[in-house]
Structure formats: structure tokens, C-alpha cells
């Protein structure tokens, strides 16, 4: 593009300083085609980018890497089936496919995706665990009470430190951790009726197969 600009300025100079010498027209016509060539290149670029999917999709540096060392305390007072719901330890990830959902009671999309996680949790081949991000324990318990608790374990990340290690951009986010303890997939943003089947379930099946 810079080249084109230089060519344009040459046209300008040609115009200004050396009008109508006998050779000038031929040179000028060569420059005159440059804007067209530059535009066609740009058009081709646009065309390929159009097919390339959502530019908002951010890559995760952690995909294919082992899940970060994680040790989170349980959410005080959260019970399920008469027992305390445990916290999260890295060692729990080995041997099964785990969905790690980062959520908070103050996050509105989290409330919207909550019922969908309850559905996903019915699939007993996967463990669903939650990282409760920068939240007050009372609010978190109330949130799970209202929308249902899909999690087999809930770790409290009050400082947000663990979320940083997991490379979380914002809540909600969901990771699929494979049986080998490596992160297989990451969903930025909420689970929705649109992406639950087309993306999440497909990725879960992939992770289940990979470990088999």
C-alpha cells in the first residue's frame, strides 16, 4: 500500500512538474493501474477473511497444555446429597473428562447459562466443576440455590489468582480438561442454546474419544 501511495504521489508530481513529455503517457498508464491492483489484492484479502470465522474468537495459549496447578478451597456451607461439596485439586483431573466452568453470582450471563450446565451435568461420563470467581460466599450459595448446582466440586477463587493462571479473560468461561489432565478446549463467554449442541457437546465427545 505504501508503494501505491508513492506511485500516487508520483502521479501528482508528474501532473505538476513534467506535463506531456512524449514518454510520460506510457509511464503514467503503468502507474494508473497500480490502484486497481492494490484494490484487487485488498478484495482478495477481504474475501478470504470473510470465510475465516469470527475474529472475536480468541486463541488460548493453554490448549494442549496440562491444566495449571490448582488447589482451591471448597465453598463453605455448600452441601449436596447431605455431604459437603469439595474444593478443586489438580489431581482430580486425571482419569476423567472434566468441564471447568468459571462463574460468579454477579455475572448476568452466568445466570443465563446455569440451566444449561444443569443439563450438561446429567451426562455422567463427565465431571462438571466450578471455579467461583471473586465472589462473596453467601451470594454464591444463593446463586447455586436459585439456579441449581450442576457442580460436583466448587473451588473458591476469591482473589482471582487461579483464574489468571488459567488465562481467564472474563466470566463466564468454560474449559474442557481431557483424561490426560490437559486442556482440550476453551469456550469464552456463556454456554447458549445455540452453542451447547453445535460446539460444547461436540468438543466433549472429542475429549471422551481422545482418552479412550
Amino acid at each position, binding site marked *: 500500500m505504501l508503494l501505491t501511495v508513492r506511485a500516487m504521489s508520483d*502521479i501528482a508530481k508528474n501532473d505538476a512538474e513534467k506535463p506531456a513529455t512524449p514518454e510520460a503517457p506510457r509511464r503514467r498508464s503503468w502507474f494508473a*493501474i497500480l490502484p486497481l491492483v492494490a484494490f484487487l489484492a485488498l478484495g482478495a484479502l477481504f474475501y478470504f477473511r470473510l470465510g475465516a470465522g469470527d475474529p472475536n474468537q480468541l486463541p488460548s495459549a493453554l490448549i494442549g497444555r496440562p491444566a495449571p496447578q490448582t488447589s482451591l478451597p471448597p465453598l463453605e456451607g455448600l452441601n449436596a446429597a447431605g455431604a459437603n461439596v469439595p474444593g478443586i485439586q489438580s489431581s482430580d483431573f486425571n482419569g476423567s473428562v472434566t468441564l471447568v466452568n468459571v462463574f460468579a453470582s454477579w455475572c448476568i450471563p452466568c445466570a443465563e447459562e446455569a440451566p444449561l450446565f444443569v443439563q450438561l451435568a446429567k451426562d455422567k461420563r463427565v465431571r462438571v466443576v466450578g471455579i467461583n470467581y471473586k465472589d462473596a460466599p453467601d451470594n454464591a450459595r444463593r446463586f447455586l440455590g436459585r439456579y441449581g448446582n450442576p457442580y460436583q466440586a466448587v473451588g473458591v477463587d476469591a482473589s482471582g489468582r487461579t483464574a489468571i493462571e488459567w488465562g481467564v479473560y472474563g466470566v463466564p468461561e468454560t474449559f474442557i480438561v481431557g483424561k490426560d489432565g490437559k486442556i482440550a478446549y476453551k469456550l469464552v463467554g456463556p454456554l447458549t442454546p445455540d452453542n451447547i449442541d453445535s460446539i460444547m457437546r461436540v468438543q466433549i465427545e472429542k475429549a471422551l474419544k481422545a482418552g479412550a
Partner: protein
Amino acid sequence: MIPELGHYALILALAIALVQSVVPLVGARSGDAVLMDVGTKAAFAQFLLVAFSFGCLTYSYVVSDFSVQTTFENSHTMMPMIYKVTSLWGNHEGSMLLWVLILTVFGALVAAFSSNVPASLKATVLAVQSWIAGLFYLFILITSNPFARLDPAPIQGRDLNPILQDFGLAIHPPLLYIGYVGFSISFSFAVAALIEGRIDAAWARWVRPWVLLAWIFLTLGIAMGSYWAYYTLGWGGWWYWDPVENASFMPWLAGTALLHSALVMEKREALKVWTILLAILTFSLSLIGTFIVRSGVLTSVHAFASDPARGVFILFILVLLIGGALSLYSLRASSLKQGGLFAPISREGALVLNNLLLSTACATVFVGTLYPIALEALTGAKISVGAPFFNATFAPLFVPLLLAMPFGPLLAWKRGDLKGATQRLTFAFVAAVIGFVVAFAIAGQPVVALLAIGLAAYVIVGASAEFLERTALFRGPLGVSLNRAKGLPRSTWGTMFAHLGLGVTLLGIVCESAWGVEKIGAFRPGDDIPVAGYELKFEGISMRAGPNYQEQVGTLEVFLGGRSIAVMEPSKRAFAARGMGSTQSALLSRGVTQLYVALGDSNPDGTTTIRAYYKPLVLLIWIGGLVMAFGGALSLSDRRLRVGSPKLAKNRAAAQTG
């Protein structure tokens, strides 16, 4: 029924556009005046039909007819009436309808006010204008029908995106679109000139008012958008080098260059080939801007919900229009006859320098905006090009531009006298030194900012050098000066104000970025927040209900020197219908300086995050934009641009006979 009528009117407009694309062109080729005249009538018909169609959609919004899908998705019965109307263009479909409405308004204006243009050129221009309109009608009808119905009709709408429920944003799109679309006229004139293979100084005279009109609105639109971003996004920034901002800035830079090169062409018949290219590129950049916002190619805060099918269609339009125009250019440009000679130091030379710098600046923004996509396409790497790149590349281009600017109007055509011009700018140099010293006395540092203040003072005073020169102000009796000032052409006044406005904007930018103060922290009710000599006492948070939202309002009492001067109430609004929020910053203007307070999150420990800023002279940034647009308007009102227009000619004829 009414939406269907609107839809039908749009289809009729398409049919008429098809006629108008061909018949006047045939007329121009064969010299048939009746066929050429079809263009004029068709342009009026298109305008009436699209205006009717637009009226029908407006009606659906006003009465909250949620059986129309776009109304359902973007409106709400509880919204204030003004936002019901403006939410029409707060979405992709409606904004496209606004786009073509403005296009047909311009088409009708050209049809009405071009009787001084040769009939065949006018017919060709209207035909080209109609190619653009036809393609966009097709786009709307095929991919983005704003009249699509829902059955059964929902009872309540989904509400407009909260950050769009704001007066500034309500008028920002129309201003910007008038600017974008206005450049279609110079594009059509350029293509018509290439088709006819003939171009002369008169061409520039016909085109310049249209360029000026578009430029005025684009300037206002950009300034409005920038001010909106400043007070609504809550970060105190006024320009983010976001791809969509750049998309509006590029046509502005190219359009500014076009305005100046057309001047050379009008006066001296030089720079013809270049001016034609600029006219094509300016509108092309407007179209590319439209494409970028709607295709999802780039990540941006402004992007409409994107759809690849639409992207492909717009790309198809781009290739037809821009590719077609540039092909024609590559075939015909070399056959256009060249004009007058001039020395490097001359008015023409200064305007060439202006064009070189502005088009390089435009190319820089272009590269910075598109480099991330190109890189991702080639290597797959994701990067973003942000403010550091633009700041580093822009200053070296704009400093020489600003230094040269006051010289331009002082140089004579053909061969200028640099020494004489320098002498006449003595005032400006003195002002620069005074600006530097005053800034040094007040602020002390940083040195770069002090120099920039000097530059701004030089630009502001230098802009009036021609005025001082021609009125002999301070050098003779005041009465003579006043008389001379009255006699000055409006375009001279216009140049002065437009150039002065740029200096004013620069002054605002420098002060805000060099001496702005920012305080961000978590505060409890009762806390004092000291900001640049002001004390803000945080009194607490309360809840308030609006028509379609709930808001959390923070109250801060502002003290200066122990005396209470104002109460600021920044708020955060929660809109139930979309479950989304918006930030309403509180602004306190002290002259052109502002205090700016935005409310952040409430924290579990009972504190509230508050961002408070002191923004010295910040309002000058936008006042400068207004002054520039005012200069443009003055220049547009110059009699010279209207000479030969039908009414005036008649008046003169009447005066002569009578």
C-alpha cells in the same frame, strides 16, 4: 400493511434505479436530450419512493409495531419517543435504509442544482449515482430486509442496545452517513469524467461544493462520535484508533486532500489525474468503512451483528464499484490532458505538499487498520495495532503539515515568495514563542507538550495571517479594515476558520493528554478524592428509576478551595429488557476544562470503584471540530461556488434587463 407498502416502495425504487442507470447514459452517448432528462426525473422519483419507504419504517418504530422484526429486536414501548425513532438506525437493516435515503437525497440535489453542468455530464453522473443506489437497494432487499415480519407478533420488543440510548449517538450516524454518502457525488462526477474522457477546471468547480458539503458533515460526525465515546464509555478517552473510527477517519483525510487538490484543479487546471483518483478513493474508503463495520472481518466495539453472507454481498458491491472505477481510471487516466506549470514554491506546491502528507497519513491509518487482518491471513498470528503505532506515525506526518499550513494561503499561484510569506507570518512565530513561554510558566514540562502548545498557537495565529494581511488590521484605520473584512470572499473566511479549528483541536489534544490527571480507586461514602486542586467528597450511592432502566447513582460534592461548587452524579444504568448496562459519566465543565467522574463496580467490602479525571481544555478538541465545520460552511456559502446556479443566473439576468 404499512411495512409492506414501504417494502414495495423500495422495490419500485430499485426498478427506477435500473432505468436511471441506463437511459440517461444512452441519452448522453447519442445526444438525446429527452433520454438524458429521464435521469433528473428518475432521481426525484427515487428520492420520493425511498423517503416514503423510510417513513413507513419510522411509523413502525413510532407505534412500536413489533410484528416488524427489526422493530421487535431494537425497540421497546417504554423507550422515550426520540429513541424509538433513532433506534431505526441503531441496527444494520435500518441504518442501510438511512444510507440509501441519504444517497437518494444527494441524487435529487444533484438533479435539482446542476443546471449549470453540461447535460451529458449531468446525465452520466446521475446514471453512475444510480448504479450505486441500485446495488444498495439489491443488498437491502436480498440480505437485509428491514420490513421482514414476525408471526405471531411479540408483545414487547427487545429494547435498543443501552449504549445507543443517548442523544449523541442518536444523531451521530446520520451526520456520518451524510459525510460518507456525500462523497458518492464526487465519485460519480469522477467516473462520469472518465467515461466522457474530458475534464477541465469547470469540473472541479462543480464538484467542490459537494465535496465541501460531505466534508462538513463528516467532520461533525467524527467529532460527535468522539465526544460520545468520551462521555459514555467511562474511560475518559476520546479516540481509540479502533478500526471503525479509523474507517471514518480515512475518508476524512482523503476528503480533506481532495478538497485541496480540487482547488488547484479549479484555479490552475493542474493535478487533474490525481484529483480524479482522490475522488474515487475517498468514496471507496467510505464504502470500505461500511464493509468493515458490517462484515465481521475486523473486531471492533462498533461492529453490527455480522453475517458473512452480507459481507460477501458488500464485497461484491465494492468490487463492482471500486474495481470498476479504478479499471476505468487505469484505462483513461493517461489520456487526460495536463494543465498548468508551477514552481515548487507556490500555492500549488503547498497544496501538493498538503496532499502528499494527508494521503500518506491516510495510507498509514489504512496499513495500521488492515495489517492485523493481512498478518492473520498470511501467518495466522493474532495481533492488534493500537495507539502507540498511530501516535508514533502520525506526529511526524502532522507536524510538517501544521507547520506548512499557514504558508499555503500566503503563497501566490504559480510562483510564490517564501521569504515574503515568512515575514508576514512574524505574528505567528511570535505567538508560538508566547505559547511556549506561557505553557512553560504554567506547567513547566514535558518539553514535547510545550513545543506542541507553541505549534498550536502558531497554527491558530498563522491561520489568520491572510486575513490580517488583506484587511491591514492593526496597520491602518479600523474603519478601513472593517470594510475590507466585509469585502473578503467568504471562502477566505472559510479557510481561516477551518485552519484555525485544527489549531484549536491540537491545543485541546495536547493539554488533555499532557496535563490530564487521573484518579482511580475504591472509596467509601465520606471519602475525599483530591483531583488537581479539586476535592470530590463521595457521599454515597442511591437507586433511581428511569423510564426503561434502573440506575445506581453516586453523589459527589465538588469543593474548590474549601467552597462547594457543584454536585456530580455519575451513574450506572441497568436495562432490564436486555440485561445490559451502560455508564453515565458525570461531567462538570469549568470553561473548556472538565472534571469527569465515572462509577465503577461496587466491591464486596462496601467500597465503590470511582474513576475521576481532570481534563484541562478538553472541550477544545471538539470545539475545534465545530470551528472547522463552520469554516467549511462559510466557504460553501461563497458566492463563487454558486455562480451560474439557476436562481442566481436568473436574478442577474433580471438585474441586467431591469
